[in-house]
Structures are given as C-alpha cells and as structure tokens.
C-alpha cells in the first residue's frame, strides 16, 4: 500500500515533536526511519499506526485520506519495542488474538484460525512453540512472535518500533535477515524505526534520516552514504 505523509506535525503541550514533515512511501517498500532519540521518528511511526493523534497535516493510504481512521480500522501490523505480548496467553493465543477479536460476522472459523496461526509459526521458523508462554521464550523468539501476531490480521502495512533494539548482535543479524525475507515474501509496505545507522542502511530500500523533529534526507542507502545532504547526516552516518 502506498503511504503519503502530508505536512504532518505533532506538539506535546509546548514541545514540538514533529515539525511539518512530508514523505511518500511507495507500495511494497522497506523503509527505515533513522535518527537519534528525540528525533521524532517513533512519533511519526505512531501517527501512521493511529496510536498518536497528529496536530496538523494529513495521512493518505493508497490516495485516500486516512487521517481520521481509528487504530482499529487502520489494519496496520504494529510491532512494539517491548513486543507487548499478552503474557497470560500462549504463543498460539497471542497470534490468534486479532482474528478472534473480530466481530462474529467476519471472524474466520476455528479451523481456519488454527491453520493461519500454524502457517505463521512456520513463516517465523518457530513451529514448535505454539503451546508456550511468552515468559518461556528468548528475546529473539518473542520478537518473532510479535511479528507473527502483527501479520495474522492480514495488515495493509507493517510498522516496527526499534524491532531489534533489545537484542544482542548475533540474534539481531539473524532477525534482520528474517524481516527482510518476510518482507520479500509478503510484499507488505514496511516502515521500521531505528537509531542504529548500520541496521537502517543494511536492511532498508529507502532511508529517512531524521533529527530534532525534521527530515534531514530521504534516499537510497548508497546515495545517503555517498552524498549526505547535511552535516548532521554526514556525522550520523559516519558514527
């Protein structure tokens, strides 16, 4: 799905988190929002997901105004930094949650839900853990379960907030590849937030560098590396 961000701004009280920013994300792209903490990247992601209300501006999904859509209506698969798994539910129940929460009229039958959950467990390459609880999983496994849970609702886009933030280097590398594969397989427009320039540059098709609530540069990873637009981008990419 094509995402168009039109002069979106956000204030929290007297502090400005986002100055009006505009960005066009082509359908099927894998985009990194890259910047230090406080750069407004997470705020922008949360506005896309409907978790934060914008102060001004518009968001368009496939050319249609989506600014006023409720979180529940956006069908955005969201992966939280803390994963936010339901710890009193098994992995199976976590992944099935979105499907079971649908109103009866468009809820898939039980067998269909089970089939889809098992297929997603295959996709994240953890077919054996359906009966386990989140507390019994490693950090990397939790992240993949959170991803499967977000994919279960057949989202129109995938939004990830620092998806690899809390993991060690080796697991991070594996999961980066995993996300890349899942993106290529599903063809979903994917936006992820990161403060790690290496991660952003390696994984994404398109990198958006942000600082102090403004977009500093938008471009392909190679272009940003070769031709940083501002002093900030040059320093941040080198760091």
């Amino acid at each position, binding site marked *: 799905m094509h995402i168009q961000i039109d002069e979106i701004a956000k204030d929290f009280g007297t502090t400005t988190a986002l100055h009006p920013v505009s960005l066009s994300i082509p359908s099927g792209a894998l985009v990194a929002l890259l910047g230090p903490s406080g750069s407004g990247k997470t705020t922008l992601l949360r506005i896309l*997901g*409907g*978790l934060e209300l914008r102060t001004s501006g518009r968001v368009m999904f496939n050319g249609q105004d989506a600014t006023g859509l409720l*979180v*529940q209506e*956006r*069908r*955005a*698969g*969201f992966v*939280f930094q*803390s994963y*936010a*798994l*339901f*710890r*009193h*539910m*098994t992995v199976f129940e976590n992944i099935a*949650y*979105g499907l079971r*929460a*649908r109103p009866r009229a468009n809820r898939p039958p039980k067998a269909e839900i089970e089939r889809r959950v098992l297929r997603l467990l295959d996709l994240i390459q953890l077919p054996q853990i359906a009966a386990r*609880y989140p*507390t*019994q999983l490693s950090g990397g496994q939790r992240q993949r379960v959170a991803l499967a*849970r*977000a994919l*279960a*609702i057949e989202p129109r886009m995938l939004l990830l907030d620092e998806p690899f933030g809390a993991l060690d280097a080796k697991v991070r590398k594996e999961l980066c590849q995993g996300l890349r594969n899942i993106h290529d397989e599903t063809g979903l427009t994917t936006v992820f937030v990161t403060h790690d320039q290496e991660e952003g540059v390696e994984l994404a098709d398109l990198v958006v560098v942000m600082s102090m609530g403004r977009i500093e540069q938008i471009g392909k990873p190679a272009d940003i590396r070769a031709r940083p637009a501002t002093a900030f981008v040059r320093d941040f990419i080198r760091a």
Partner: protein
Amino acid sequence: MPGLGLSAGITFAMLTLVVALPIGALLWQGAEFGAFGIWATINRDRVRAALWLSFRLSFLAACFNLVFGVILAWVLVRYRFPGRRILDAAVDLPFALPTAVAGIALTALYAPNGVLGGLTSQIGWQVAYTPWGIWLALVFVGLPFVTRTVQPVIDEIEPEVEEASATLGASRWHALRHVIAPMLMPAALTGFALSLARAVGEYGSVIFIAGNIPLRTEIAPLLIVIQLEEYNYGAAGAIGLAMLAISFTMLLTINLIQIWSRRRIGHV
C-alpha cells in the same frame, strides 16, 4: 540452606503463639461444650439469623468492593489529576481509623436526623439501623484491601499491551475482557478474600450503625460478646466455632477458584 533452622524456628514459634494457640483454645472450648451443646446453641433462631446476616452482608460488601476497588485502583494508577495523591492516601484511612470512630461517624451521617440520612429517608430509604447500614460499614472497612492488592498489578501492565490489542483490531471492551481482566484476576480475588474476611470479623464500626435489633440487624460477633457478658463461655465458643468453620470454607473456596483460574489463564 543456611539459616533454615533459625528462620523456621522463629516462624513456627510465632505462628504457634499468635495463630495456633487462640484457635486451639477455641476448639478446646468447643470440645468441652460438646457437639450437642454446640448444635443446640447454633440452631436457635437468633443465632442462625445473626450468622446468615453477617455472612450475607460480608459477601455483598466484598462483591461491591471487588468492583469499586478495582476501578479506584485503575483511576489512581492510570490518571493524573489534582488531588490524586491525597485520594491515594485517603484509601488507607479505614485501616488507620479506630473502627468505633468510623461507626459513629457513619451513624451520625446516616441516622434519620443526619445529613445524608435525612435525604435518603425523604425517598423512603432508611440506611442506619437496617442491613443497609451494616453493609455500608463493611464496605468502608473492606475497600482498601482490594485497591491495595490490585494497584501494584495495574502499575505493572504496560500501556503498550492495550495499544497492541487496539492495533490488532480489538475493541476497548474486548481488550478489557480478554487482556486486562485476566491479568487482574488473581490479585482481585486475593483482595476480595481479604475484604470478605475482614468484614466477617468486623465489630466496632458495625454495632453503632446496625441498631442491633435481634433477628433483624444483630451481627454474629455481637452475639458472641453478649454471650461473654453473660459468662456463657460455652455458647460464645460455639458461635465462634460456627463462624470459623464457615469462614474457612469460604476462604478455601476462593483459594480453589484462584488455583483454577491460574491454571486456566496460565502464567500471569
């Protein structure tokens, strides 16, 4: 394990002195009185009415506290408003206030010539000297138990969990039923049991507002005191034993429900 002998010794000594000995004395008293005597005491109309009144109203008060205490805890943890800290501190007042003071204050408010009692009697609803008054006093003394057991659990639920539920398309109501309620259930049940236990044994705050009319507003603990004042230790012990047995059964049931719910909703 180092220190096991010492700490186990202290624990058992304290438990024996503080819990086991008084209960043992009560059982001993009952044994001396004999099964026939116990039954003859309990099976009187006045005693049965008092036991039924005490346990029924304690249960109803604990049910009210379960709902309202959870809501209060939720508001105190999740919302920021002026006076929140004062309200938070005020929750503990029923713990600290001498129960007789609470009872007299409630009576003064709700008696037919009191500020609130005057209003309610205008619509034909009398609170003081009726079971309503007893219920009110029991709600007052039991409320902090639920709020204080549930509060830290709510504090630990990350707001992201609710956001995750919303991004998956679930309504607020669905999240409340399937995400929040199961997480709060064990703590809420513990608070319910504590509130219930406290209400069953409550004496000071109730006797002023109850009016103590035999067969109608006379609670079981008061009946025990009346028997003691008449040097009727056997009958007092018999009523005490009946209360002990009923309380034990109720708390056991709540514990079983907790075990069942923990098994059903898994690791919390």
